[in-house]
């Protein structure tokens, strides 16, 4: 609540004396809900196959470490494991990324951020869950502040198990994800749009209505 107190409606006066009414909550976010692509679940044609190949070879990760697993990202970026050679790179903003890695447990506060980041990423987008905590809560299965299943809040393409997964496991996970994308099965964004109401209901059960726009992009 405290955080959103500056987001109220107000009138501002422009330098030329014009009075402008602004409503920050409305102006910042578009609340049109997403729509799935046409025929996304059909067998892909040649052009779509080519696109899928291109998508699979350029996985750009949103560099957001939401949990412990983020510590293994640095070894992946640096000479020993060097994931850049697979066309994988880390981007600082959701707008430039197409792969969201949930690196471990998600606390409620982080879930709020992650949902927004996921919705801001351009489609097609993929989600990879690292560690046991994203699958069934892992070590924090009885914690009051971490979610137990990631797939109730956003569609997940692959999971990498372990606590925490080693860099080698992550590279294997990337390979798996590439296969999925090439086969035309990386349709998480469309699934999200199709089952939008269900996902939103789950998110709102935990996050409440405060500061969570219907859809932010």
């Amino acid at each position, binding site marked *: 609540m405290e*955080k959103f107190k*500056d987001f109220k409606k*107000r009138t*501002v006066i422009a330098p030329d004396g014009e009075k402008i009414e602004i409503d920050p909550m409305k102006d910042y976010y578009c609340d049109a809900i997403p729509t799935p692509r046409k025929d996304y679940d059909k067998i892909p044609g040649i052009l779509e196959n080519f696109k899928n190949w291109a998508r699979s070879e350029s996985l750009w990760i*949103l*560099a*957001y*470490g*939401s*949990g*412990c697993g*983020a*510590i*293994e990202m*640095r*070894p992946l*970026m*640096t*000479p*020993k494991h060097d994931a850049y050679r697979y066309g994988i790179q880390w981007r*600082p*903003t*959701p707008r430039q990324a197409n792969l969201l890695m949930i690196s471990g*447990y998600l*606390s409620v*506060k*982080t879930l709020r*951020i992650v949902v927004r*980041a996921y919705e801001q990423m351009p489609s097609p987008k993929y989600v990879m869950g690292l560690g046991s905590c994203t699958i069934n809560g892992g*070590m*924090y299965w*009885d*914690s*009051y*502040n*971490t979610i137990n299943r990631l797939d109730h809040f956003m569609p997940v393409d692959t999971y990498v198990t372990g*606590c*925490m997964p*080693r860099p080698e496991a992550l590279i294997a996970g990337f390979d798996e994800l590439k296969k999925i994308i090439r086969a035309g099965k990386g349709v998480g964004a469309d699934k999200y749009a199709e089952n939008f109401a269900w996902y939103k209901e789950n998110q709102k059960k935990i996050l409440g209505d405060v500061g969570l726009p219907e859809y932010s992009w």
Partner: protein
Amino acid sequence: MFTFNEDRSLFPEHDEKGKPIVDVESGQFTKIWQGPIHPGMTGNMSLELTIQGDEIMDCVTHVGYLHRGFEKLMERRRFIQCFPICVRVAVPEPDFNEYCLASTIEELGGIEVPEAADWMRTLLLEMSRLQSYLAQMGGQGSSFGLGLIGQWTIWARDLVLDRFEEISGGRIYHMHMPPGGVRSLLPSGFVGRMNETLDEISAVMEEVERVLFHNSVFKKRAIGLGYIDPKWVDEYGITGPNARAAGVAKDVRKDNPYLMYDRLDFDVHLEYDSDVFARTKVRYKDILTTIDLIRQILPQVPTKGEFMAEVPNVLHWKIPYGETYKRAECTRGEYGYYTVTDGSGYPRRINVRGPSYTHAVTLMEKMAINLNIADTAGVMSSLHTYPPEVER
């Protein structure tokens, strides 16, 4: 010491409590959020900044993005079950959690740890310190745009992690010091391989010294930035390298020697400028000290003998009523566990005292005022804050 040309502390105006007066409604100020999607290695926390131009007028830190409720979870786990989850409190250097928890339980349960286990623990803690410092050094360079430092030091850190893997089988989480001792002694041939690793890291550190401390970009930006007054050390509870860079000799290894530190020969390095450059320098010298300490410890670790004390059956292990506090010097400062037991098989309360608790929240809010936005990442890196130990 570097001084500003004009007295920038005049604006924003402060009230009598020293809190800046900023009125967002007046239109002179802008409010932005830095984080939690962050550019540096500082972790998952955010700063709510009120800015004028690119100068920060007010700062409120927001933590809680990594809160898992460890202290609550440990209350409903047996002592031995606390042990695998306690390491997750601080990811860059989990071993200090293991040591502090194990030693509080040993003290309250009245268990004598064999000497071999103590040597082994000292070695593991120093290795952990080395890898954490290397990661921090990379983050410190990256936050000023010097990505190369990170490429080198993270590579060197991987070598230490490989040695950890030899000992315990784990890369990041080792869980090698259960209450009562250690799980194993050194594997054969370890000493030679560790010495080789130390040689390689020393070589890397020489290069880092040349590239980082004689780099004009780094010098221009880091000297005079993020000044910590020595008077604040007690006020804000500053410990570790942040205090040592301000000229206050605070090092738990010297002050309250634990494990085998009273038998080792090392110095506490001090710097007096107390800016980002001085703190980086203290950390650099600490890396060299740590390498030296590991070289001293390695020949003294026994190769055979008792390394685990007699512990009661862990499933029926009840610890009588009591409370204690044990501390250790981690890379960020004083790390401690305050454990209260009530006679049952479960701890009554375990409180983790992470050094970032005061560094990241109270101190950062004070230091951020009058910084440029571009410098906040560098200052946070130089405090070596780590959010999970703020919120556990």
